[in-house]
């Protein structure tokens, strides 16, 4: 049942959008449905919660990650749920009459419901990761609501600032929660809340606490992250009343209260949370007094009261926790009503500046009375709800002894904060409703429509009821909510209005008198403030943001400067570092055994390999020589393959080597034959060092692997099943065309893609030739006679060889890949021996069609196995006895291999012919 509570508003967010054409009232009713259903569900489920039962329900979502859709309804969740749905309903009513005709009411309501669902999710979530998901959703919906009037620049800036600050805090919170879940072994609150001692004694506790507090403090606008909240006042007033005083900004203190049983009680908690709260309380109360904007005053006052709640939770005793929860309730109620009253004044006069708003009492006496009552509650005047929790706060500061000799400081600072709070409340009352006549107002106010005022009336009535008869109104809810914060038996406290003459009462009286006196002498204070202005949080934030962007850009420019050399150096350097660290820790060089003795033949091959490789580098700037040397390396690699029992590889490498050399020579027609010596000796030395480092790493890795015994499970499997399962004795070929046929299909496709890519790259033509010194005098003279004559013969012979290699491939070295490359050699020879266009016409081969045919053949062979109920690419084979020839084996894998053959021929020919086009031969003459 519980998961439905947040789900209903989330889904209900569609309703106002669907009903938008039926008028504003229909839209408001449709919106209210979601809130009413959630509220009713909460009330229906509440009786056992009041008895102390924790209701839980939900289901698994991603249990591997510890993320589950689990919800819990305990006292704290119930309290917040009632605040969210109750005040939400009033805000829906208020917004219906507050927003102007030209504003899109349905969009506003949809966002409001989205927020309501998200906020309910935060307070009802049992899974901490789920809580975080909803937490981020509140940040997002808050962003959209602050920016509701998106044509206003202050709304956009305020929304952006709020999102950046709260989302950054959300990231920290994510890290903190991951740590918490790691320490506690679960993300379920029901498990986590039982692991308090483990968590507090864990070495990661401080890091985790700081990260979680960053999330809570940014959300609840604690110093130094408070600055986003005053700028969020660019939102429509219903949003300010709902999100930025009653609910969303309370998410931070909710989190503190939620995790109070497992995080609080340490010195670190006391100093971090307590001092932040105390400083925010004082600083914001001071700043609130100097705001000229009505909503600005209320915003700073909200920050100050959030600081007070944070301080109470930070003090960390059960009694202060009760006081903190009590103040959460009271603040939500009186501040929401104050914001709504401020909204009415704004709505009726078109102005929020307290230097112009004066003497409104005689124009709107009823609204003024309501606002003054709520402001008195904010100031902590007796018989109102604010008085009770403030009195509890004062009493706790007096009894606190945790600070030793400086314990007297806290009550003094608490009284100072009380004085400021009375002073700004007095300013709100006196400046706006009395203090002479209005100055240059856009219009003189009248009493608002009754429905706009009704939410204020209801909230102020609650202020009075709680203030006068707390035991009959708020007591049960407070007790059950506080019990789940304290996490044990509740301490004894009294909600009575009159405790007799005591120090807290004296502090309250001092605050009231001092605040009135301070307001009386405010001009002196304003002068003082003008001389020592507070730092502008927005300015600092924007400086930080700009600096961050500049630094990020510089870092990007340094790393990503467009130089291939830089990228490769970083990549290779990083790989070397990772390799060295890994090798060091893995210790794979410590144990070794040798299997193969050194023999002269192998040694000769290796020496030749080393020599040709070094010579390639040595002559790299004389490119023709370098190509010859590279060919030498390739051919020596062929020898190595032959020596180390890889005949198939040797054949492949041999043919590829020839094709590569042809291609490199073709490329040299368009690139300079000699390269300049342009890099400095220092850079060459640095590159050589890096290359040596990487080479040593590769050598070490090879050595490490070669000197330990082989893992032969795979080899044994393929060797054992090749003949029986694949019908071939050449295991390498059987693996390629049968066992791992799907891989080979993928690899053949890569070849095709490369060929098509090359065709696309060179479709625009080739660069001007650099090497042809003069056009040949006679076209025919360019092709040697002997080559021309023998080419035709060679073609027939080579194709025959290719067919032979192809056919024997299943049992002896050979196969489609090698046969394809041999065919390419035969075709390429034709081009070398004759005119390009004539050869093309004579061969009459369409290589794209060849590729397509090969792919189709593979696909058909693969799908054919499906006809017989086998998986894709399952192969079969049979032996057929033919007269004269004898036993012939027919394998379906042969069709697959034929496909590979066609693809190789088509692709490689395309790669060769694209840069080999003769158009380029007619280019400009160069000396």
């Amino acid at each position, binding site marked *: 049942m519980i998961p439905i509570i947040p789900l209903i508003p989330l889904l209900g967010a569609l309703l106002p959008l669907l009903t938008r054409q039926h008028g504003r009232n229909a839209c408001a009713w449709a919106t209210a449905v979601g809130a009413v259903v959630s509220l009713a569900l909460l009330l229906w489920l509440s009786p056992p919660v009041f008895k102390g039962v924790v209701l839980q329900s939900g289901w698994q979502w991603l249990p591997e990650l510890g993320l589950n859709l689990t919800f819990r309804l305990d006292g704290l969740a119930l309290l917040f749920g009632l605040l969210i749905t109750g005040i939400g309903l009033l805000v829906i009513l208020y917004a219906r009459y507050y927003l102007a005709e030209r504003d899109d009411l349905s969009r506003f309501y949809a966002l409001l419901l989205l927020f309501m669902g998200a906020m309910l999710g935060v307070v009802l979530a049992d899974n901490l990761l789920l809580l975080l998901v909803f937490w981020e959703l509140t940040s997002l919906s808050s962003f959209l609501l602050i920016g509701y009037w998106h044509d206003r620049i202050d709304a956009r800036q305020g929304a952006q600032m709020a999102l950046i600050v709260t989302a950054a805090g959300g990231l920290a919170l994510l890290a903190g929660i991951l740590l918490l879940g790691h320490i506690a072994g679960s993300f379920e609150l029901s498990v986590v809340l039982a692991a308090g001692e483990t968590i507090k004694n864990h070495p990661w506790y401080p890091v985790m606490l700081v990260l979680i507090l960053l999330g809570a403090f940014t959300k609840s606008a604690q110093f130094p992250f408070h600055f986003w909240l005053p700028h969020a006042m660019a939102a429509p007033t219903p949003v300010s009343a709902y999100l930025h005083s009653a609910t969303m900004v309370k998410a931070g203190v909710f989190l503190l209260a939620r995790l109070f049983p497992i995080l609080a009680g340490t010195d670190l908690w006391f100093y971090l949370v307590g001092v932040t709260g105390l400083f925010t309380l004082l600083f914001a109360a001071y700043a609130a007094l100097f705001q000229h904007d009505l909503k600005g005053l209320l915003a700073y006052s909200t920050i100050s009261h959030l600081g007070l709640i944070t301080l109470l939770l930070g003090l960390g005793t059960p009694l202060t926790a009760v006081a903190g929860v009590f103040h959460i309730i009271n603040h939500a109620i009186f501040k929401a009503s104050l914001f709504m009253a401020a909204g009415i004044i704004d709505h009726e006069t078109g102005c929020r500046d307290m230097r112009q708003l004066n003497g409104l009492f005689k124009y709107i006496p009823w609204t003024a009375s309501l606002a003054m009552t709520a402001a008195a509650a904010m100031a902590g005047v007796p018989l109102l709800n604010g008085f009770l929790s403030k009195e509890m706060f004062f009493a706790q500061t007096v009894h606190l002894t945790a600070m030793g000799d400086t314990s007297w400081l806290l009550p003094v600072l608490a009284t100072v904060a009380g004085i400021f709070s009375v002073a700004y409340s007095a300013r709100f009352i006196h400046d706006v409703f009395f203090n002479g006549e209005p100055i240059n107002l856009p219009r003189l106010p009248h009493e608002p429509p009754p429905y706009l005022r009704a939410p204020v009336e209801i909230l102020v009535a609650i202020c009075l009821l709680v203030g006068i008869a707390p035991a009959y109104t708020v007591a049960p809810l407070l007790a059950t909510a506080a019990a789940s914060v304290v996490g044990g038996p509740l301490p004894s406290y009294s909600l009575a209005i009159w405790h007799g003459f005591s120090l807290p009462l004296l502090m309250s009286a001092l605050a009231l008198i001092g605040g009135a006196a301070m307001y009386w002498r405010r001009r002196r204070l304003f002068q003082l403030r003008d001389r020592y202005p507070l730092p502008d949080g927005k300015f600092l934030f924007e400086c930080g943001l700009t600096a961050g962007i500049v630094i990020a850009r510089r870092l990007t420019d340094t790393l990503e400067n467009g130089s291939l050399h830089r990228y490769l150096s970083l990549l290779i350097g990083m790989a070397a570092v990772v390799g060295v660290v890994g090798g060091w820790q893995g210790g794979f060089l410590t144990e070794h055994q040798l299997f193969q003795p050194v023999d002269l033949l192998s040694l000769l091959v290796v020496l030749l390999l080393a020599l040709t490789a070094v010579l390639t580098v040595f002559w790299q700037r004389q490119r023709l020589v370098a190509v010859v040397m*590279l060919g030498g390396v390739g051919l020596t*690699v062929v020898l190595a393959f032959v020596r180390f029992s890889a005949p198939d590889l040797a054949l492949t490498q041999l043919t590829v080597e020839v094709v590569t050399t042809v291609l490199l020579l073709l490329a040299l027609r368009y690139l300079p034959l000699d390269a300049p010596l342009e890099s400095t000796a220092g850079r060459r030395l640095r590159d050589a060092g890096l290359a040596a480092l990487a080479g040593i790493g590769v050598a070490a890795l090879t050595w490490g692997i070669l000197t330990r015994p082989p893992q032969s499970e795979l080899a044994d499997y393929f060797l054992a099943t090749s003949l029986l399962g694949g019908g071939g004795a050449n295991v390498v070929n059987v693996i390629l065309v049968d066992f791992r046929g799907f891989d080979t299909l993928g690899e053949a496709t890569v070849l095709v893609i490369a060929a098509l890519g090359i065709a696309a790259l060179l479709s625009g033509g080739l660069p001007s030739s650099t090497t042809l010194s003069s056009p040949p005098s006679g076209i025919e003279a360019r092709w040697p006679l002997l080559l021309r004559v023998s080419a035709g013969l060679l073609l027939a012979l080579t194709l025959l060889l290719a067919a032979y290699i192809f056919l024997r491939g299943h*049992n002896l070295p050979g196969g489609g890949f090698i046969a394809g490359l041999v065919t390419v050699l035969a075709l390429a020879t034709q081009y070398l021996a004759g005119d390009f266009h004539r050869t093309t016409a004579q061969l009459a081969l369409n290589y794209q069609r060849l590729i397509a045919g090969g792919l189709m053949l593979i696909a058909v062979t693969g799908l054919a196995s499906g006809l017989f109920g086998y998986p894709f690419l399952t192969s079969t084979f049979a032996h057929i006895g033919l007269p004269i020839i004898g036993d012939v084996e027919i394998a379906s894998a042969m069709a697959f291999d034929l496909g590979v053959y066609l693809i190789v021929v088509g692709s490689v020919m395309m790669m060769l012919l694209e840069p080999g086009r003769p158009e380029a031969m007619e280019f400009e003459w160069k000396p």
Partner: protein
Amino acid sequence: MEAVIAGVIGLLAACGIYLLLRGRTFSVVLGLALLSYAVNLFLLAMGRLAIHRPPILASGRTDYVDPVPQALVLTAIVIGFAMTAFLIALALRARRETGSDQVDGVEMVDSVTRLEP
């Protein structure tokens, strides 16, 4: 033999990487080719060194080298060629677009040392 083979694979890789870090496209092509040789030999070495033990089944023989790395290297050789070809095409295209064979498409100021024919 293991140390000699490991050393020469390392040398091939080092030569390849040094050429990769040069400033001209053709050197990069050569470097990549050398690096592919190193990688192919390295992959083959994963099946351990064996002489006269090709993975071609024959009656009377029981001792074969691991065929799996060979199957991997066979396609790697062909794909390595495709990559070289693609890089060459890229180099030619870059030269057509920028008139330079510098890898970043920008001639360095001090390239006046280019050898005059």
